């Protein structure tokens, strides 16, 4: 009986405590040292970080987890996107390109002074030391170390002088990389100045410097956090522990729950920009110009895998923005792509994010049927109404793609008309010219049957596959869908074991057309590269090789136009769409920026108004008292009924 009472009491207390629907833990502080309110930004990521190691982490979510902690050598100007502009972050200035007498290229880089690693037990006395040029050399050595499994090694080894050789010689003696091995592409001039020597022109190096791969890490930290027991305490591995030099330090990471960061006092690597403000926000943004970064004190990234809780938390005001995904789109966005009146009345804003990417359906150019018949490929391409496809499956948000280079990048031609775009009549004509009038073989009369490889991992994927099938079958041909997991489809594409492959495409690594045209370069056939179409045309290759190492300008643009024309002529793929989505921002956290091309690197520029958030949250989360009363009344009524029923039965 006593136990029952205790349990009832505990349940009561739990219920009382439960009368608060805020899922976020209490902030680290309530006020700043100067008495002003402590500012917390609440974000959501759909998955856990795969790693916190800047030389290993590659995916966009991983870069978003890393960017608060690790600054980069360069960064994208948060306001300037047309054209995209790089600006110095840890470097004093954009590296100077130097042409060597032997035709090779070097970049002279100067690190800013007085940038320190965060205080951590891995340093003597626990005090973070200054970031120096040797830390950048260590980064290059880490790329060469096979144990780091850096995905950046392969794209950089052919360009950075001596990187490939460093791996060979570094592991030659023991099989384990020897960090005494120098990388000849790195030359230290003094403690803060260094040169990076390249094997030839490679302007994209500057974009790599704006990625976390070049974020300096401290050797002390990598060696200290080894995942082993020391003095009876288990140290985490460096892959899951951050010792950075950026605006925040990571305070907590709880797998599958959250990552929490706290502002580093005295961070001074960069300030809020004073130029490039978009006209519609210029007046508001002026107040932040020149302010020290970050604009808030604590960052809380909630790991929310599913889309429904994301929408619920956003509606309650416990996230600073809501991504308009398939489950919440109708509630947030009107048919003319505006915020719905309900959310507009809440004071929310709407931002469109367009990640430069191109998705396409690949033709196997080595397939004896489809690879040899250009008119057949063009007919299939012209049969695909991608506008309708995007309207159905992406709520009309994603822009239809008509060329390989996506919007926002140098080389994208807004006036370009895809000669293989949707035109069903033309498609039928082309099919007849290809030898299949009305979808039947002109010689045998048999219906043309083609196989479409489709990654089908959910009902929605299946619907997309069936829609693609229907578009192509409008030509009178038969499309057999070969459903598989995404990994299995990629495997079949890599083996060349397919005719038509869906689900292929590319999302930007860095904003350069080379990052997209390499998908059709013949030296990038699988398994080394991602030319799944196995497209091979010597003139295209020559143009690509020239274009890849050129600086932006009319000559480069002319080469891009030539390559576009070659792709249109050979039609190795059906262009589908670019990725884009809407984000609704809360009234207390309107975005200070919206870079249309880059998804990461701008967290420190965001602002929040904690006072407004507090007030609005309170209004949005009022608790009515009637439900428990109603529930209790129902129980009592049931009991009274039961007693009466029993009495009547026994009368």
């Amino acid at each position: 009986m006593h136990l029952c009472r205790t349990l009832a009491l505990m349940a009561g207390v739990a219920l009382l405590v439960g009368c608060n629907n805020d899922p976020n833990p209490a902030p680290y502080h309530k006020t700043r040292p100067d008495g002003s309110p402590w500012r917390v930004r609440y974000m959501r990521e759909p998955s856990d970080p795969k790693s916190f190691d800047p030389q290993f982490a590659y995916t966009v979510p991983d870069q978003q987890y890393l960017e608060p902690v690790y600054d980069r050598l360069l960064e994208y100007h948060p306001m300037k996107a047309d054209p995209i502009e790089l600006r110095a972050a840890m470097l004093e200035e954009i590296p100077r390109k130097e042409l060597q007498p032997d035709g090779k290229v070097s970049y002279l880089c100067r690190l800013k002074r007085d940038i320190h690693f965060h205080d951590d037990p891995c340093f003597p006395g626990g005090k973070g030391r200054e970031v120096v040029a040797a830390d950048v050399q260590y980064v290059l050595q880490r790329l060469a170390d096979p144990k780091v499994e850096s995905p950046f090694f392969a794209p950089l080894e052919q360009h950075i002088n001596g990187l490939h050789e460093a791996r060979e010689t570094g592991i030659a003696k023991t099989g384990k990389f020897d960090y005494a091995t120098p990388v000849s592409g790195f030359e230290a001039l003094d403690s803060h100045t260094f040169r990076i020597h390249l094997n030839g022109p490679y302007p994209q190096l500057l974009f790599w410097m704006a990625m976390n791969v070049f974020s300096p890490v401290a050797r002390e930290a990598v060696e200290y956090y080894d995942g082993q027991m020391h003095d009876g305490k288990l140290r985490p591995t460096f892959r899951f522990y951050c010792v950075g030099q950026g605006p925040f330090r990571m305070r907590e990471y709880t797998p599958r729950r959250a990552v929490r960061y706290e502002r580093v006092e005295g961070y001074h690597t960069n300030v809020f920009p004073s130029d490039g403000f978009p006209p519609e926000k210029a007046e508001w943004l002026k107040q932040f110009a020149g302010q020290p970064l970050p604009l808030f004190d604590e960052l809380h990234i909630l790991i929310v895998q599913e889309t429904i809780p994301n929408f619920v938390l956003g509606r309650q005001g416990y996230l600073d923005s809501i991504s308009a995904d398939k489950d919440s789109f109708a509630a947030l966005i009107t048919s003319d792509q505006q915020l719905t009146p309900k959310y507009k009345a809440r004071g929310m804003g709407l931002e469109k994010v367009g990640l430069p990417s191109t998705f396409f359906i690949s033709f196997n150019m080595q397939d004896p049927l489809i690879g040899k018949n250009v008119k057949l490929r063009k007919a299939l391409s012209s049969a695909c109404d991608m506008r309708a496809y995007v309207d159905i499956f992406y709520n009309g948000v994603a822009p239809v793609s008509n060329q390989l280079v996506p919007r926002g990048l140098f080389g994208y031609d807004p006036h370009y008309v895809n000669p293989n775009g949707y035109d069903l009549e033309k498609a039928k004509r082309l099919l007849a010219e290809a030898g299949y009038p009305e979808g039947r073989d002109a010689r045998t009369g048999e219906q043309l049957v083609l196989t479409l490889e489709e990654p089908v991992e959910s009902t929605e994927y299946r619907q997309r596959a069936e829609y693609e099938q229907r578009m192509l079958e409008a030509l009178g041909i038969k499309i057999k869908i070969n459903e598989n997991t995404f990994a299995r489809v990629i495997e079949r594409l890599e083996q060349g074991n397919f005719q038509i492959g869906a689900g292929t495409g590319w999302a930007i690594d860095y904003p350069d057309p080379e990052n997209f045209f390499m998908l059709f370069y013949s030296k990038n056939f699988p398994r080394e590269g991602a030319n799944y179409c196995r497209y091979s045309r010597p003139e295209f290759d020559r143009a690509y090789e020239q274009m890849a190492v050129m600086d932006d300008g009319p000559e480069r643009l002319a080469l891009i136009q030539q390559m576009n024309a070659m792709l249109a002529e050979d039609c190795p793929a059906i262009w589908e769409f670019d990725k884009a989505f809407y984000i609704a921002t809360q009234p207390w956290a309107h975005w200070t920026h919206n870079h249309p091309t880059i998804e990461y690197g701008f967290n420190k520029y965001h602002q929040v108004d904690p006072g407004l958030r507090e007030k609005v949250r309170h209004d949005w989360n009022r608790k009515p008292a009637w439900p428990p009363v109603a529930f209790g009344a129902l129980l009592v009524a049931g009991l009274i009924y039961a007693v009466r029923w029993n009495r009547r039965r026994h009368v």
Partner: protein
Amino acid sequence: MFSYLVRRLLYAVPILLGVICISFLLDNVMMSPDAKASRVLGPKATGQNRREWIHNRGLDQPKPMQFVHYVGKLATLQFGTSWVTGRDLGEVFLKGVGPSLCITIPGFFAAFFASVGLALFQVFVRNSPLDRTLTFLSVALMSVPTMVYVIFTQAFLALGLSYFPAFGFNDDGFGMARFIMLPVIIFMLINLGHDARLYRAIFLEEMGQDYIRTAQAKGVANARVLGVHVFKNGLIAIITLVVAELPRLVLGSLLIESLFGIPGLGNVLVQAIQTGDQPVIMASVFLGSGLYLFAFILTDIFYALADPRIRLS
């Protein structure tokens, strides 16, 4: 009884070996090492990245060697490391058990007490319109998919009434209570309809027994007949059904944990399936089968303990 238990434990060994064999075979038939590498590393990984990844994990070794190595590690309860996060799986499972149990144990007891209570209440008002209504509602509860419960409770109790957090977890004592309320309510609702129907049938069967008639003839109050005599005797059948549920408690609930962000074993498994983290999936299969075998043995023991007429031999 002892020899019976030893025999049952020995039977369990070939079953576990069979599970290991089948899961290893399926794993290797379904995906080549290269496909595994591209699943984990993503579509942008180069051939070189994938080769290194495969080599570092020993996936380029002959299959029989991989199998022997795998069984050897399992025999010493070493589950290896996650391919995606690089974390030790022993640690991952140990950390995941707590949050899973935080949901499933209160959920289990809530469901148990609510179902027994509802079943006894229905027996109390048997054949009344209220009994029929409750039976109808029980059938309705059984027919609703878990996802609907989750959406409904998140929309109504968390968003509409603002009583509980719609998402998240916190393991600091009482602070946890508000996070587990909704999952526990859902856990209870999922089981309530089915269990209440079953227990009602069990209790009604007891109501027809001679000893109940004797008690009623002696003038024992209806409530006492139900609460003491029917409940105690009905419990023998209920316990054996309930013990078989134990593995589910440890392994957590895939959907609920995933939709509420509870960092338990169910969530671990869902993420592993989504990211192609084979070591986690295979270790979960092994653990799950081990737990089920253990639960079946436990059921036999409980059955013997609850009913002295039963002897294990």
